[in-house]
């Protein structure tokens, strides 16, 4: 019975929070803690696997290494540039342009949780509570095990629900946010 395709061996770290582009390792200086990363990808995931950056984390060193808290850690310079542009546009009230710029970033890294999160924030600022919640949920779904991202997403969802007049849902979301925030404590130095 051959091994299962979707179940990586134990040496594999879990899901990458956001999916960095394949060439991440070459194009962006990694934080020192990630520099000693093995240069080779595990054999069964060779080739231009999009999870390379993540694989560079050492899963066997307890305590668990903190998942990325900021977009910089998982996003290519190209995506960072677009997110910066989107921030500027949003800051000056050009919400549609900001959203379009974030969509452009998503075309580059379609599973980057931070981009979905910012797009959710833009939609919320536009009063599109429904889309804001959906995008924040989508961000959760690609974030993997990242309480930092998930806490922020649940805060966004709480806001969105409040905007939509769903007080009960908002408070449920808020307590989820609190829970995730609490679980980030395990990563505190």
């Amino acid at each position, binding site marked *: *019975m*051959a091994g299962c395709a*979707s179940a990586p061996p134990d040496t594999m770290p879990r*899901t990458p929070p956001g999916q960095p582009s394949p060439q991440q390792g070459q194009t962006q200086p990694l934080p020192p803690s990630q520099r000693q990363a093995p240069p080779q990808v595990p054999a069964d995931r060779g080739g231009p696997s999009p999870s390379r950056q993540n694989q560079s984390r050492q899963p066997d060193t307890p305590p668990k290494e903190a998942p990325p808290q900021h977009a910089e850690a998982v996003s290519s310079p190209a995506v960072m540039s*677009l997110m910066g542009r989107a921030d500027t546009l949003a800051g000056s009230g050009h919400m549609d342009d900001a959203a379009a710029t974030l969509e452009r970033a998503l075309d580059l890294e*379609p599973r980057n949780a931070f981009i979905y999160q910012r797009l959710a924030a833009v939609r919320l600022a536009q009063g599109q509570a429904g889309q804001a919640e959906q995008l924040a949920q989508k961000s959760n779904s690609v974030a993997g095990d990242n309480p930092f991202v998930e806490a922020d997403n649940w805060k966004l969802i709480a806001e969105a629900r409040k905007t939509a007049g769903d007080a009960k849902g908002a408070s449920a979301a808020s307590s989820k946010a609190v829970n995730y925030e609490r679980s980030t404590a395990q990563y505190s130095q």
Partner: protein
Amino acid sequence: MARQSNKKTAAASGGRPRRSLTRRLLPYLLLIATAGAAVLALYMAHLDHEVRAKFEGTRWKLPAKVYASPLELYAGQDVSEKELITRLQRQGYRRAASVDDAGTYNESGAGLALHTRDFQFWNGAQPDRKLRLGFDANGVSSLKATDGEGDLALIRLDPQLIGSIYPNKGTDRILVKLGEVPPMLPAGLITVEDRHFMSNWGISPRGILRAAIADIKAGAIVQGGSTLTQQLVKNFYLDNQQTLSRKGKEALMAILLDAHYSKEEILEAYLNEVYLGQDGSRAIHGFGLASYFYFQKPVQELQPSEIALLVAMVKGPSYYDPRRHPDRARTRRDLVLNMFHEAGFLKDDAWQAAKASDLGVTGTAARGNTQYPAFIDLVKRQLKGQYKDEDLTEEGLRVFTTLDPTVQAAAEGRIADGLSRVEKQRGIKADTLESAAVVTSIEGGNVLALVGGREQGYAGFNRALEAKRQIGSLMKPVDYLTAMMQPAKFNPITPLDDSPLSVKLATGKTWQPGNYSNRSHGDNVPAYYGLEHSLNIASSRLSLAAGIPNIIDTLGKLGYEGDAPAVPSLALGSVSMSPLEVAQIYNTIATGGYYTPLRAIKDVTTREGEPLNRYPLKLTQTVDAGPAYITTWMMERVARHGTGAGMYSTIDRSKTMAGKTGTTNNLRDAWFAGFGGNRLGVVWVGRDDNKPAKLTGATGALPIWSHIMADINTRGIVDTPPDSIAQVPLQLIFDPNAANQGAGNNPNQWFANGQSCSNAVKVPFIKGFVPQGLLNCDTDIMRVNAQQNQPADNRGRAPRDQDNDQGSWFERIF
């Protein structure tokens, strides 16, 4: 003097004047002349009005221009240097020693030097830039600006112009200004067509005389002798009839035009009006569009040999069509180059170089609407209802689409090759098979490629949208997804009965699904295996237990808008769908349950670039992440171990892919639908007359699908189990050929090593619904586990954290 004295005499004499005949007729003649002049004047005034109204009013109806999605260049982009150069050439970029001009590149140094074109995007203008790109094994490794205008993290290439939306039998053009075309173009036109253009009055008496002599000699009108102004008038105001009165009217109008407007205005109008070719029912007018039509680049970038060819074609665009009659075209182009040289605006060496160069026109495929008819069709359908026809055909709107020309080229190429190959291999009559394909980006729901048939560039029946065929086993992932939404009843190792089944229908008939292999695989088949090997009977039982109405409900959640028949055979795909509809359904599964409407258009702007309409990303979670994840996991097994395993003879084994084959009754339709991490593809193969194609999904559609996905560097699926998923390592031992209902003669062997089972596979369950008593390293056969499972401590393992399971796992379905 004499006359004066005469007059005086007459007046002085007071007598009756003696008049000559002429003198007596003079008043009448004058009257007639005056009347004639008046009529002529009136006619001239009428013509004048016509000339001015047309010239100054909305002169040209401008069809909407449709663009492909622009290629983003950035460090980290997985595009090789070779692929990028192919793309640049497709977009008419020119290899040049130095990249001083926009639209040029050079790969001789380290990396690739590139000078991009400026472009008015939907979110503003992007100036042209000079860059240097570095490459490594993964693609673009560095991007540096070399023009001193500041650093860049990324830049878009100008998007490829892929078509226009023009009325049936319409004219198409792209406006250019006189000041922006290469000066050699107007100068060359004047040299070749009308040497005295700058000084004549709109007509050339000499030319007319010459033409008249030729006409008289021939006894018919054979020669134009027209000035550029006359040619413009003819193109602009008149039809192509060559009668004498037409010629007169043309001459008068030319004089009027010349009197009213400057030479520059007339020349610019000519550049935009002149007829330069035919593309099916679309007439190519003006040098702006002709430049794209023949060379796929803006007119500014035309080289002397290209300018000469276009100028040469003015004389007879179909006679000198460089694609159909390259020799004729070349002879005339060289003649024109000689005239350029004699006139002094082409120096010796440039002249020689231009004559030595080939025609340089892009292939018949690389032109406008006929290149991507199926995709343009989809674009039109999506625009319909939002814009009036006139808005689309007259206002010069700009439509920015999701088409990726590289993906499209791969899909077209692989379909053409794949059909020919399979026809040959299987002794099928050549050219009897047809095919259609859709490729999407998964996230974002972008349609990257759409192929409507094997004959590329043929704007006929768009099978990707219109061919609705039974989907067969492509339906099964929807069945299993529906089942996994009921975690109390189903999980990936729920035992299914694959023994013969017959169901009494409401119609009184009996439905008896059979397996493709005509055999049963026992009454204890783990659910995942049923999908992996596309077992019809086991899957039918699962579907009936999950509920056909629930399956229809799932179809709706996945984005299917049609009516599916509420009959048991729906479980096996007795519903007809187009490839695009299938792509929508699978796309929702691939996103993890986020329905994202497939879109072909992202933005529409005015001609000037003002945004009109945006089609933003919209997503809605319609299916829970857990069931979607389990379904994808099972489809990954189809790809690794099941009916889709053939893909890995083409696709890199390290990539996790998911998919499903589909084959319909009597082998009429062969389907494959599947996805990796960032691309989803659907391929259909069959016959237009719906006769048996004699192919299965695995033999007919899968090879084409695999090649497309490999060509476009589809990434593998990144395993992201959602929070609602619990993974249990299990030994998947079920083998229908083994004794003991697939468990083999000695199932105890699997339990010898306790909790160490390196061969185990992490099987996903919905949290809270892991079957009671299931332990790590158990097998996929619940019956076998049950025999081993008492007590758990005896096997040296603690039971997993369990839920109080409602669905007793040993209970078989039916």
